[in-house]
């Protein structure tokens, strides 16, 4: 076909080429206009996402260290992954210790954020007046940057008596606690600030879900019973299932990726997985291969959790139908 086309083109010259071109244009009209808009963004995405992903995946099998490029790698092995799962190796120790901190963080934050978010959303909804004002008042601290909230953590939980929490303890007759020097109390301090300023992001999603519940359902329920808590647990909560699933998933994923507080507040023994990855990748000697392997194991965890969550959510939906 090619040869005939080119032969014809030679014979009739420019005219035929033009007609093929217009035919092509007419036939792929939609595609041309669509890809002319999304072409550059898609290429962009391929470079900074797809290629980056493949690069990181391949790098995780190498012993790349000291630099970021294939010239720093010599062999392709599974060693990086084996190290993570081999009991007693130094990589396994640091990874699973970091994992412990991360999992504790994730569990506590997920429960606290969601319970508090739900409760506050319910209370704000039940207000007759001024609900929006409270929503606005409660939400803004969650927009503050990690640098600022780390600074606030450091002042609230200062190791001497200048911190409020130490002053409360002293006022109650206790001894000054060196909050940020002990891993457990340091983690508690980070969690407290993170929760107290951040739970309103969940609150917002819960609030929008709770106001979308049809009013007549609640009215019908309140005719049956006087107890507000019964209405809440029997009617409101089941109708908010989608928001709860979404929020839990978001909290878990956020929790697994936590880095800010641990990095910005200097303390021993509170290393999260993301901080470990960051340190392995960028602190000398940058063990790029090992860092990428950590990142992929973390990604695997997040991926499995979101799959499980999806399955649970999907099952319940079908059972209701």
């Amino acid at each position, binding site marked *: 076909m090619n040869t005939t086309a080119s032969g014809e083109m030679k014979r009739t010259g420019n005219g035929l080429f033009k007609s093929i071109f217009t035919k092509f244009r007419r036939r*792929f009209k*939609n*595609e041309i206009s*669509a890809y002319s*808009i*999304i072409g550059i963004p*898609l290429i*962009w*995405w391929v470079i*900074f*996402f797809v290629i*980056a*992903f493949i*690069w*990181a995946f391949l*790098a995780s099998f190498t012993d790349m260290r000291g630099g*970021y*490029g294939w010239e720093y790698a010599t062999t392709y092995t599974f060693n990086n992954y084996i190290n993570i799962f081999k009991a007693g190796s130094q990589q396994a120790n640091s990874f699973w210790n970091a994992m412990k901190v991360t999992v504790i963080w994730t569990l506590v934050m997920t429960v606290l954020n969601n319970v508090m978010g739900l*409760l506050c959303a319910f*209370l*704000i909804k039940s*207000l007759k007046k001024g609900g929006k004002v*409270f929503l606005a*008042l*409660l939400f*803004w*601290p969650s*927009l503050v*940057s990690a*640098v*600022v909230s780390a*600074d*606030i953590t450091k*002042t609230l939980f200062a190791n001497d*008596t200048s911190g409020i929490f130490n*002053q409360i303890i*002293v006022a109650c007759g206790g001894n000054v606690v060196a909050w940020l020097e002990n891993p457990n109390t340091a983690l508690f301090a980070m969690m407290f600030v993170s929760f*107290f*300023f951040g739970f309103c992001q969940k609150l*917002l*999603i819960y609030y*929008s*879900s709770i106001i979308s519940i049809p009013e007549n359902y609640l009215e019908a329920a309140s005719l049956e019973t*006087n107890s*507000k*808590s019964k209405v809440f647990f029997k009617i409101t909560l089941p109708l908010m299932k*989608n928001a709860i699933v*979404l929020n839990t998933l978001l909290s878990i*994923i956020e929790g697994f*990726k936590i*880095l800010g507080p641990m990095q*910005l507040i200097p303390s021993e023994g509170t290393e999260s997985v*993301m901080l470990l990855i*960051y340190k392995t*990748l960028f602190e000398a000697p940058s063990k*790029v291969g090992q860092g990428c392997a950590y*990142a992929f194991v973390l*990604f695997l965890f*997040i*991926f499995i959790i979101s799959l499980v969550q999806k399955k649970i959510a999907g099952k319940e939906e079908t059972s209701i139908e």
Partner: protein
Amino acid sequence: MNKTDVKQADTAKPKKQKKISMKRRERTFQAFCYIFLTIIAFFQCMPFWLKLVDATHSPDFLPEPGKIYVWFTDFTLSNFKSVIEYGKLFQALGVSLLHTVSFTALSMFVVVALGYVLSKKRFRGKKIVTTILMATMMIPGEVMLAANYKLTIAFGINTSTLGIILPGLVNVFGVFLVSQYMVNIPDSVLEAASIDGCGEFRKLFRIVFPMAKPIIMTYVIITFIGTWNEYLFPMILYSTSGSESLYTLQLAMQNFYPKWGGNADTYLRSAGMILITIPIIIMYIVFQKYILNQGNTSGIK
């Protein structure tokens, strides 16, 4: 703790139910709500107030140990001036503004273009593009930290502001947020526009932008705040290249330890923290409507 409070309040009520009328119960519940929410709001705002008070102490002020200063003592604004001067905050503000504004604007165009095409146009390959984009939404960007760093080096942008602008531009989550909203734009409007001779780009700017304004505004504000607060990638690039054009406000404040001795450092830092939060608060006050609507849109999912 708060949960049990509610439960107790509820279980205590039925006993007195006969005595207290419905109206009265409702009133106590309302009062409880107001008090509870006010307490939370108060304690959330308090640390920022304390920071503000801290920031206005004069550098030689020595606080009494074991005392919390809730009102201005030894008031001065010189800390703000000093932190701007010694923390090079003006220079950092320039970098931060360049980073935030250009990233937000570019990202918005990308997201709107992709969202529009994927929701409103019919073309071959749409299904493949959509599924691949959807599938990769699960992958956290942090997995590619090293790779993105390598890419900025490969493109030679690791010493310029471009290095922190270009990598995260295509926000797949944003694309789906926007396209979910754009599905509701009636096809007839777009058809009418193209019959009147509107090209694709004109349609995008004249029709799609105005009709999807609420969601685009929400996306823009969320991105603006997120970018303003970002510190991880700028820090990686800054700590390896040391280039001044990567020194954003967040980095400037994070690394700001003037070592003046006494409590002067804390006062200066507090002043700086207040300064870098002000733009966020202004954004919040002005665009509150759109920010508080984001729950609506992400709740759809």
